[in-house]
């Protein structure tokens, strides 16, 4: 049985999962999608910035930064 989706921000550092839902307004997340972060994409949480925000993720083999309040809206199926 698949475990429930959880927001990206609740992953352990180094933990990874598959994007199951993006609850951001569609007109705002075009660039996110174009950078390769889509439903079904595998991603890994690398670290939070020293001041706690933003955070760094690894997606399709490269590193990307997004802010915490956006990351909270990205839900994952953890692996």
């Amino acid at each position, binding site marked *: 049985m698949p475990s429930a989706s959880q927001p990206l921000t609740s992953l352990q550092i180094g933990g990874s999962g598959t994007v199951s839902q993006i609850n951001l307004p569609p007109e705002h997340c075009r660039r996110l999608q174009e950078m390769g972060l889509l439903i079904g994409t595998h991603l890994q949480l690398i670290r939070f*910035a020293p001041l706690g*925000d933003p955070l760094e993720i690894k997606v399709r083999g490269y590193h990307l930064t997004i802010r915490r309040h956006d990351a909270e809206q990205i839900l994952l199926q953890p692996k």
Partner: protein
Amino acid sequence: MEPPTNPATPAHPPSPPHFPPAFVVLCGNPNSGKTTLFNALTGLRARVGNYPGVTVERKEGRLQGASADRPVTILDLPGAYSLSPQSLDEQISRDVLLQRLPDVPAPALVIVVVDASNLERNLYFASQVIELGWPTLIALNMADVAEKNGQIIDTLKLGDALGVPVISTVASDGAGVPELKQMILATVRGGEKRGSSKTLCDLPPALSREAEAVAQLPALRRHPALARAEALLIVSDEKFLAGGRGVYPPEVAMAAAAARARLEKAGVDWRSSAIEARYARLTAIQQSVVTETNADQVTLSDKLDGIVTHKIWGMLIFIAVMALMFLSIFTFAQWPMELLSNLFTWVGDWVHKTMPGGDLESLLEKGVVLGVGSVVAFLPQICLLFLFIGLLEDTGYMARAAFLMDRLMSKVGLHGKSFIPMLSSFACAIPGIMATRTIETPKDRLVTILVAPLMSCSARLPVYTLLIGACIGGVWMKSLTMLCMYLLGIGVALAMAWLFKKTLLKGETPMLVMELPPYRRPVLKVVLRHMWDRAKLFLQRAGTVILGINILLWFLVSYPTHPEIKREFAAKQAEILQSLAQKPRTLTTNELAGALDQLNADRDSALVQGSFAGYAGKLLEPAIAPLGFDWKMGIGILASFAAREVFVSTMSIVYSAAKHEGEKEQAHNQNLQKILAAQKRPDGSPVYTPLTAIALMVFYVLAMQCASTVAVVRRETNSWKWPVFQWVYMGALAWALAFATYQGGLLLGFH
């Protein structure tokens, strides 16, 4: 003219046929090594300018090795992640590729630089460009890095999958560049005709049908080969038509809206299904062409990042890097600046000595030479800052700096990348404002430009030093006052940034999606090249305006000339000399020199007070009296609108602080401090009280008294609207806060 050798040839000399240069466009993702490749292809000669109407760098060069009769021009487009732009840079790239800029010709060839170590994401843009149907070739760059990371790419297979030639290059050491040059020459010589546009993603049938229908509209028939790719963007990107600047008639927008409505009804997500389809195809391509030899290994870059973005070490490294950068601009740049300033003083003196005195001499010495000098004086700071920025960008550290600082800057609605321009502005707002080009979001960039001059720059330092030295007692109080001035600037800058983001420049800011590129060794030639380009642009564009304003200010303090004042002082001088001739030994040589210097100083003071600037100071007095300033300070404030440090030299003229031969600058300034402290109002109270001095400093913290900054903001925002707005808002703020300081101080019983 030679007679025709063959009677059959026409009268015109037959050969060589003159071809216009073939036009090649180089594009690709940011951090793909595109600029390094451009330099490898064109050598060191490139023309740098701006695209008309925007401040995006336009870089063009001639392909090295092309024959003289068939030259090839290469245009280096700004880096872009997609054809749906988020920044001005990306917008220019899209508009060139879609042939929407009138002064950029159709490319004979498009080269897409693809970072082999980040293949899938780079292919997103590459595949969009390939679909436009131009003759295209892929430069698969940094294949060496990919191999180190354990990925071997089959270039032939990749070429087959994409339907365009792929050439493997390592731009930093020149590998593959000769092959790429040959391929470029072969393509432009062959004059390959544009084919119909290719399709690299399998769209949902409904979306595909709608795009086809839009492509059939007459408005898109201008470039039939582009039409399908253009139509897909029209349907799937709601911002595409807004950026079209009247290229498309209204029926296109109507057709797009109708198509989207039908797609929504059919349950097709018109926004993201094209992106999803493209990535599905790219994932398949990537899996078929890449052999993973050592999957999931931790790269050196990853290990480095563990330290550089570490909670403690990362912050310490950041502070060290910023301190080094700041100190360099603030201290090291002083050496060449002093040299330059001495050089221009020397040239001015030379003009003074060799030319007969008069208006022309005065214009040359005090207007042109000093004006050019004040333009060139900025060069060391600009060069140093851009050397640093180039290194930070090209090593990949810039993105980490933004990553570390984003939380702080986002509190006032700005981006992490605003940090470095703001920090640089403590040394000088000119390079700081020029550095805002690294900020992608136009609104964030504009807000940063608007608040950057509030940071206390090095030109305010002499003003603070003079006033604090004259009016504030005690070492601790002096230091505390200085610190407060710096803090006031920072506080007001952050508050205004927040206010601008809430009011004037509100509206949606695109969400932060920033790549953290792998660390790379910078190519020094590229960094130095960039530094030189920026310096040249500054000299050409801002320099002329700065020079003009300097000449205007020279006019205001030099006219009207008062021959009667000059005659009067010449008579006094003659009197002294005569009395000395009658009674020698009443004055020592030193005393005589002192008396004559004082006489000259008194004359210059009288002349300035009678100049247009002097009248303006008196005219201004009612407006600045509530701040505790008198008309003499008014002259200083007015003259400071050329540059703040002019306040010190102007005050020294107004209060006729005589400058003696061989006197050290510092001694002269201390003398001026004493003179200021001794000034009395008609009622006998001192003019320069601590409260007046603080109000005056508050004014200098906030007012935009710098012609050069105005010129650079005009340059960087490409309109007079923003520098005028900035000048007015900072002036109003300066007046209001100086007023509050002075009147509040009076109410609290200070004086």
